[in-house]
């Protein structure tokens, strides 16, 4: 029963409320929800909740808190990178894969450094932002090195490259900026600036559009009975409440007086989320500046990473199913108590099987940018988000800034779903 209780709600289900609040722009409430989730989280999920909370803090402009959360999560993820815990391996195999501590995808690790960089920069800590830029460049090299050209197109994180290049520009290191912009141009040609001029007075705005895809647990559950040479039973397909009958080499019906095998085959499905906003436009000093350009398709990156992992995930799910069904029949030739114990254990383990639905769910589907030369003095900007039919679905907060002391004004607006 404890095991069943342990695994009844998936990460995606637990996150649903806070996730919706976040995408509705109700950051304070999303933060309160995430505080509760983090406080109740097991050690296996705790640092993932910190990522979610760090992202909400960033949207709220609470940069110090964002840095604390993101850094704590990053430190842990780097500590456990490329390592395994034997106890977690066994628990994952016997119960379900959520028994292992969460290890982020490569693009998620890159995004941690990217958001950290932004948090330092927006807080006004230039040196801190430059250090994060150095970390980010190392991460980009580490996680994208060795990818085929095709994989690089999907798994690179051009937003991270853009921000790193921008920091080099701000520091006056035009050559280093050029290297990152060239890497950006390979993946996202429209987003790369045509000229690199650290002294040019420019406004660079980033915004996020849409929701990251989420994983849901897809489960095929059923019950099989052996009757002489025949195999019969029923199973439930994902999303169906109607049982499907199954009979192999026999037309007999199920009876309760014969032992049977309970099985579950659970795997994650990655679901792209519906978007209300499909494009957006920057408004500066009351005038339309133009459509913001897509710089990063994180939805595709997350989906590609999921697809690459899927064969192994399915193999592991099949192995779990096999182990749990074998356990239910392993005691057939043993004494009555052993037989019952193994049968109950196998059935309980089959019942608690779930897919691992964990992922960083407050990431956007897409990141867009707008870059323009800007005159010195005070300005104000906001972003209008448009739906499929060209209707305005959301408007960002207005941000006021002054372009007097710095040649590059970088703004980050969390965006619309």
């Amino acid at each position: 029963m404890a095991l069943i209780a342990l695994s009844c709600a998936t990460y995606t289900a637990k996150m649903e409320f806070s996730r919706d609040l976040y995408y509705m722009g109700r950051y304070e409430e999303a933060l309160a929800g995430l505080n509760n989730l983090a406080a109740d989280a097991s050690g296996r999920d705790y640092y993932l909740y910190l990522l979610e909370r760090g992202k909400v803090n960033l949207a709220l402009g609470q940069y110090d808190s964002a840095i604390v959360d993101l850094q704590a999560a990053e430190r842990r993820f780097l500590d456990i990178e490329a390592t395994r815990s034997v106890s977690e391996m066994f628990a994952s195999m016997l119960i379900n894969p959520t028994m292992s501590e969460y290890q982020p995808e490569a693009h998620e690790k890159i995004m941690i450094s990217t958001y950290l960089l932004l948090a330092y920069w927006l807080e006004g800590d230039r040196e801190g932002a430059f250090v994060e830029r150095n970390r980010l460049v190392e991460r980009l090299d580490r996680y994208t090195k060795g990818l085929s050209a095709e994989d690089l197109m999907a798994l690179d994180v051009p937003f991270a490259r853009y921000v790193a290049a921008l920091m080099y520009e701000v520091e006056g290191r035009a050559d280093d900026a050029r290297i990152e912009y060239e890497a950006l141009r390979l993946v996202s040609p429209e987003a790369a600036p045509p000229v690199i001029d650290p002294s040019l007075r420019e406004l660079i705005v980033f915004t996020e559009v849409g929701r990251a895809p989420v994983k849901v647990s897809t489960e095929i559950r059923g019950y099989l009975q052996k009757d002489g040479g025949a195999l019969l039973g029923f199973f439930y397909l994902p999303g169906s409440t109607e049982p499907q009958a199954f009979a192999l080499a026999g037309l007999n019906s199920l009876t309760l007086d014969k032992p049977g095998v309970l099985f579950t085959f659970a795997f994650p499905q990655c679901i792209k989320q519906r978007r209300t906003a499909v494009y957006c436009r920057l408004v500066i000093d009351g005038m339309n500046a133009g459509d913001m350009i897509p710089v990063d398709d994180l939805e595709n990156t997350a989906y590609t990473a999921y697809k690459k992992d899927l064969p192994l995930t399915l193999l592991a799910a099949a192995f779990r199913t096999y182990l749990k069904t074998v356990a239910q029949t392993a005691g057939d030739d043993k004494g009555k108590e052993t037989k019952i114990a193994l049968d109950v254990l196998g059935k309980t383990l089959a019942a608690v099987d779930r897919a691992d639905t964990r992922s960083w769910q407050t990431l956007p589907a897409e990141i867009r940018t707008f870059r323009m030369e800007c005159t010195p003095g005070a300005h104000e900007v906001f972003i209008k988000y448009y739906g499929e039919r060209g209707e305005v679905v959301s408007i960002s907060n207005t941000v006021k800034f002054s372009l007097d002391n710095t040649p590059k004004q970088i703004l980050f607006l969390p965006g619309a779903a």
Partner: protein
Amino acid sequence: MKLIVVSIMCLALVAGCGGTSTKEIDISTDTAESSDFASADLQRITDGMMSSIATNGFFQQYAAQNAGEKPVMLLAKELKNNTDEHINTRLILEKIRTRMVNEGLAQFVDDQAFDLALEQLNLQASDLYDNTKAAQIGRFVGAKFVLRGTISNIRKVEGRTNINYQNVTMDIFEVETLLIKWTDEVEFKRVTEKGSFR
């Protein structure tokens, strides 16, 4: 079976004895815990730079040319951090300043005491203080030399192996001429190998 039960009980007993323990670490023999910048590196950098300064001859030459006077120096705000770690680089500079002052090599202007000193001077110039014993205005000493530097690193991470090369380069330049009077570097490279299991 009995053995298993006894073992579990022993383990539980040992686990129950767990608590916080604190021990003093000798800084001079301290070693780094990982390939990242560590407190042990501070010692290594200070020792390396101080031995270079001692053998460089600039300070002895300055004293000889200026009737035994020590050069007046200023610390740069911080050591420029070109690494991928958030390091309190001011600490490195201050550690070297402490050694230079204690070894009688130079005098330093306190760049961070300006506002406090100004406040005190203004207060003491007021009627609240005995003006005959108050600190005099107009006696700040300008630095002729600045101590500054850069810390950089090159990191390579492959699987569980983390290789980190670090370099600290420092110099003293003359404010009037921009001539570098002393410069040196300390470099080190460390590799950390994580275990497969945690």
